[in-house]
């Protein structure tokens, strides 16, 4: 976690923790409010929130870029980029380590910089702008995929634990606690080393690893919501009518806990992007010549002094994208929690 994190591990509103640990301590009131609002209310609120909309805009742009890049890479074999631009993984396109347009570095002065490579070239002469463009694809993909893994796995675990309670709850929650107690950057590093020593699919493994590592967060969140939903009349009624447990969990319990999970998931995507960038930086995520931001930062390390530009842009890209998810997450949270509304 590239240290990254946490704000939000449990804090859909900073309050979640208190509720889990010091149960019922004034929490009930909030739960009632929560039940009343639900998902649609949240989304309606969102439309009035400029920061959330800004976040949504950033995410839309990034996702659009990622989709274009993915289509190009998977379906067109880089035809699009190669025709109008440069291949992101093959080089060289130009001299190595060119500075961005209009500035200089230790190798070249500003007169050598060119608009053909607006952000300069890397140590292998590849265009930095094209690689950043393609990096979006990896960032967005890993962010969404790993979060979906964590969300699905964590939601199911948490729902089952919360609904059944008793020893099932104990076992599952202990398991979550164990996963939680191992620093998860390290957990993922070990998982990558174990499952993919050749690093052929390191990115995929890292993605799954981050997903697994984020499961406890979702599990705890869902579990605390389930505790309250469980007691709702309609759930009692369904139970009495002999509806199967599985059905009750899927049909009633999970949908009713959806708003806070959505908030957490949005924040988690940003977090996952940060973590995978950190993993790639350490060499356990994206592998060369893949164009990923973390990987680019790794390659920028030996060049920090002669070509500092090269290290600046990938970092800004990460920052920009993650800010997008955090803005949206904040917006969703405020919208979901009427008490903080004006």
């Amino acid at each position: 976690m590239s240290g990254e994190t946490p704000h939000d591990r449990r804090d859909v509103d900073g309050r979640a923790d208190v509720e889990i640990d010091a149960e019922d301590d004034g929490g009930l009131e909030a739960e009632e409010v929560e039940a009343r609002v639900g998902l649609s209310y949240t989304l309606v609120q969102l439309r009035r929130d400029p920061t959330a909309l800004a976040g949504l805009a950033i995410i839309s742009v990034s996702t659009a870029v990622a989709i274009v890049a993915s289509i190009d890479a998977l379906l067109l074999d880089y035809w699009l980029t190669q025709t109008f631009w440069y291949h992101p993984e093959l080089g060289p396109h130009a001299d190595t380590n060119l500075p961005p347009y209009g500035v200089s570095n230790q190798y070249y002065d500003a007169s050598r910089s060119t608009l053909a490579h607006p952000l300069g070239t890397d140590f292998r002469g590849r265009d930095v702008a094209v690689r950043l463009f393609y990096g979006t694809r990896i960032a967005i993909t890993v962010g969404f995929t790993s979060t979906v893994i964590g969300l699905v796995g964590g939601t199911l675990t948490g729902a089952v634990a919360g609904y059944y309670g008793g020893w099932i709850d104990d076992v599952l929650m202990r398991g979550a606690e164990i996963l939680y107690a191992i620093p998860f950057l390290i957990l993922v590093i070990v998982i990558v080393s174990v499952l993919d020593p050749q690093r052929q699919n390191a990115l995929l493994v890292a993605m799954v690893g981050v997903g697994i590592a984020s499961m406890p967060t979702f599990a705890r969140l869902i579990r605390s919501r389930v505790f309250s939903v469980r007691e709702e009349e309609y759930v009692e009624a369904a139970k009495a009518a002999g509806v199967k447990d599985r059905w009750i969990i899927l049909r009633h319990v999970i949908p009713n806990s959806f708003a806070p999970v959505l908030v957490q998931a949005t924040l988690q995507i940003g977090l996952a992007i940060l973590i995978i960038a950190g993993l790639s930086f350490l060499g356990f995520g994206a592998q060369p010549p893949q164009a990923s931001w973390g990987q680019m930062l790794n390659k920028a390390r030996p060049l920090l002094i002669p070509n500092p530009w090269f290290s600046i842009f990938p970092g800004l890209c990460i920052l920009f994208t993650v800010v997008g998810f955090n803005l949206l997450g904040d917006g969703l949270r405020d919208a979901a929690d009427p008490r903080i509304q004006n």
Partner: protein
Amino acid sequence: MGLFRYATRRLLQAIPVLLGIATITFFLSNAVPGDPIDIMLGPSPAQEQKAAIRAKYGLDRPLWLRYITYLGDVSPIWLSTVDGFPYVAPEFGVDLGRSIHFGAPVTEKIKERLPVTMLLMGSAFTFALVTAVPLGVISAYRRNQPTDHVSRVVALVGVSTPSFWIGLELIIVFSFYLGWLPSNSLVMPWNLPPAADQAGLLSVEFWRIAASHQVPVLQHLILPTISLGTLQMAAITRIERSAMLEQLSQDYVQLARAYGVRDRKILRKHAFRPAQLPVITIVGLNLTTAFGGAVLTETVFSINGMGTLILTGVLNIDYPLIMGTTLVFGLIFVLGVILTDISYAYVDPRVSYGDQEA
């Protein structure tokens, strides 16, 4: 339930968790492909020698036996077989094994590295708390005013920036271009120069040397602290702000206002303390994530701490080292969470040491 009983109960509950961590790390690290002996010997080891070394490290025994032995070694108390099965005797003490890469006991390596990481993390969290708490409070108090906006933007950017990237850019600017601060390793406050020893503990000279030694200590700490602490700072600011807002919207605050109590006083006397609960939780929970951040920060700043130690373990397929370091991380985390829970009471007397596990 009293504090003592509660603490004991929590500690007992921690045992299965620690056991689980030991189990996971054991099987995970043993599943790491690659032969540590190959790495140790380099590309062309003599085969007979290899077998002998494997035996020395116990790598020739079946996995389950190694697992049992390992559990026995890491547990403070364990029954071990003496001279074959029927005779058992209690075995005391913790043994994390011997690092294959360093050829030294893992506990020794950890004793050497842990203080370094603790110093780094302590410094990062201090920095984070000292800046974040006031920032969060002011932000909540001056809600939707310029101060609030600035602090929210700072916090937003802080939680969205990769810590290692901050580190890299700090090195370029402050170490290379400006040459103000060192960019590598930490100096331990207690590693005094030899002159101090000669002077003797009671002399004025000793304290003068000790004091001036703290200058390089601080210089080395500044950049890594900012790199690791920014994220925590931002995270805590956000929590602090929302917790304060929540408190300020409580009925008792409204009531106090209605009675004409000054805002500043409400803030100081009533709202502040309960708002610290989530902050404490986050600090406790963020211990693990900060350890992850420490791996990156230590890598960027070439600090020989636990983070680089664990990376060395992974890269060299050094099972005992991976297992030992992970276990220690787990232990610290579990203790951190327990301490967090206990400290609730000091902040908010309304929290009782009840069955908080729900």
